[in-house]
Every structure is written in C-alpha cells, then in structure tokens.
C-alpha cells in the first residue's frame, strides 16, 4: 500500500510545536482561573477570562466552571486535530479513523463555538457590559467563520468516506 509522501514534513513539527505551546498556555490559563477566588482584586488574572471582579455567588461560579470546561474542550479538539494531521502523514489516506475523527472535530468546533457565544451572552448579562457602537473590521474572529469551519469538517468526513469507497474499489480491481 502506498504511503502518502509529501514534502510537508516541517508542517508536522510546526503543528506539534503549536500543540505544546497551546497546552502550556491553556494549562496556565486554567490555573489562573482557579486562582481567581484567592486574589479577587488582581487585575492580570481577571483579564484572562474578561471578568472584572469576583464575588462568591452561584452564577459567577457557574461561569467559572464553564470557562474551565471550554478550555478543556478546546485542548481536546486541538488534540483531535493533531491526531488527524499526523495520521494524514503516516498511515494510508481515507481510513475509518480519519473519517470518524474529522466528524468528531467538526461537531466539537460547532458545539464549542455555540457554548462560547452563550457563555459570552451570560457573562455580559451578569457583569453588565454593553458593547460600544463603533467600527469593527472583520477578520478571523467571527464566530460564523468558526461554525463554517466545523460544518466544513463534518462535510469533509463524508467526502473522505466516498474516497474510501473509491479506494476499496481500486484495490479490488487490481
């Protein structure tokens, strides 16, 4: 069976590097969130999750737990992403693993983006923030873009399934 030989080997190292950096910083992020109750007036920590002041109340604790869960979900989806890329390098293309994990990744992205936007609405409500009207020039921070990416991944898993069928036919005829 042919393996997929690409001149993109540095890409894989780059992705591993990114994964490690993100893991470290999100770990620090979670630790920072856990430390907020002990330093209620520290500004640096509060900037991490965009929460101006901390009080021991039920909705705020709920928000904190959701923030931690969102971080963990992000790490997990990044892990799935890394797995997919390394399997695209190593093993033959269009395996069942790639199909299922592409689908999982797409669903995770869509779900996490939706949870995050609900989270933002609630945190705006609780802390009484209102957005100032002004010019906002769009780029990659749009949530719809992320949802598109998620749906694209889900669709990609169907495309991969089709390609897998093709490949099996090919192997049979040879």
């Amino acid at each position, binding site marked *: 069976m042919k393996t997929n030989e690409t001149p993109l080997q540095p890409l894989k190292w780059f992705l591993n590097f990114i994964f490690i950096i993100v893991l470290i910083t999100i770990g620090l992020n979670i630790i920072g969130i856990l430390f907020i109750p002990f330093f209620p007036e520290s500004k640096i920590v509060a900037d991490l999750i965009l929460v101006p002041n901390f009080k021991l109340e039920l909705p705020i604790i709920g928000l904190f737990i959701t923030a931690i869960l969102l971080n963990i979900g992000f790490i997990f989806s990044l892990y799935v992403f890394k797995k997919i890329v390394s399997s695209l390098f190593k093993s033959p293309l269009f395996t069942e693993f790639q199909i299922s994990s592409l689908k999982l990744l797409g669903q995770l992205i869509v779900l996490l983006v939706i949870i995050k936007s609900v989270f933002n609405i609630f945190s705006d409500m609780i802390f009484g923030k209102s957005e100032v009207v002004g*010019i906002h020039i769009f780029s990659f921070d749009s949530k719809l873009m992320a949802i598109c990416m998620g749906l694209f991944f889900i669709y990609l898993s169907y495309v991969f399934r089709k390609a897998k069928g093709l490949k099996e036919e090919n192997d049979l005829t040879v």
Partner: protein
Amino acid sequence: MFRNNLKYYCLSIISYIFVIDKQQLMKSHISIQPPILLKTILDILYILLIISIISSLILFILSVIFVEKIPFSVKINEYEIEEFSTGIIFGISLEFIISGIFIYIIYILRKVVRSFFKQKLFTTLQISGLKLIGQLIIIARLAETVLTFVMKLILENKAAVGINIDSSFDSLWFTLALGLFFILLSKSFSYARKLQEENDLTV
C-alpha cells in the same frame, strides 16, 4: 455592532445542525448529500461581511473627511481615535485590505462548497481552491498579527511582545494550523483524484 447579531445567528443555528446531521446519517454510505446548511451559512456570512465592510469603509472615509465636525471620538477595533494622523490612516487602510483578503477566502470557500453540489468530487478546482485558501489564511493571519503589533505601537506607545492564546477557535495558532491543514488537504485531494482516474481507467 455586528457581533451581537452574530450571537443570535449562532443560537438559531444550533437546532438545525443536529437535525441535518441525523438526516445525513440515515442515507446510504457512498452517495453524499450536498452540504445545504454549510452553503446557507457561508452565504449569510458572505453577505454580512460585504455589508459590514462597505458600511465601515463609508464610516471611516466620512470620519476622516469630517474629523473636526464629529463630536464623539471614533472607535475602531478597540482603539479610540481622536485625531487621524497619516500613520493611523495607513494602518487602518491596511486593516481593510486584510479583511478584503478574508472576504476573498470566504468567496473561494463558497466556490469550493458549491462545486460539491455538482456531485463531482476531487476536481482541480477543489484542489487548487483548498490550497489557495490555506495559503491565504496563513498570509492574512500573519499580516494581521504584525499590523496589530504596529498599531499598538503607534496608538498606545506600547510594544507588546508575548504569546497570547485564546481558548477559542480564532486564536493565532489555531488559524495558522488551520491554514496548514487546508494545504495538506489539497494534497490528499490530489491523491484521491489520482485514485479516481485509475479507477475510471480500469472500468
């Protein structure tokens, strides 16, 4: 101003995703349905982006021309601007160019997704489109990062160097990885195209 609207769009989309996903699961394995939901969302995003970039371009030009008659300070991407020096105008126009690239990316993505509707997979359009999307994502994201750094230097006299990671899908590292993934995807698509051609030949 569009951010609030986006939130409600996301909320209304949540119910659709799972319904359509189930429908697709029930179908047979080989024949795939056209991605109707994806196309709809891409269309919405495209139209919204075009409206927002045109309106903010008009607002920007108006506020540059009539800068002395405006009673309030203009806020552009988190920065409050009281006077327009040439540096600031230059930086903001560069930012407009970057969002133009972003709109172009969405445009290509729409084209690729629409080409899936024709039940023809692994065409050269899809392969080259995916590759172009990946390259553009990386270029635009890097340019945006450099520009943000320079703008901060100009506007706030602050040089900020550091690794900033948001726990969301718009963080710098994730988008870079996404761009690389698209390039890789175009490679695997071209591999699948080769397979398909062999298949057609033997039959």
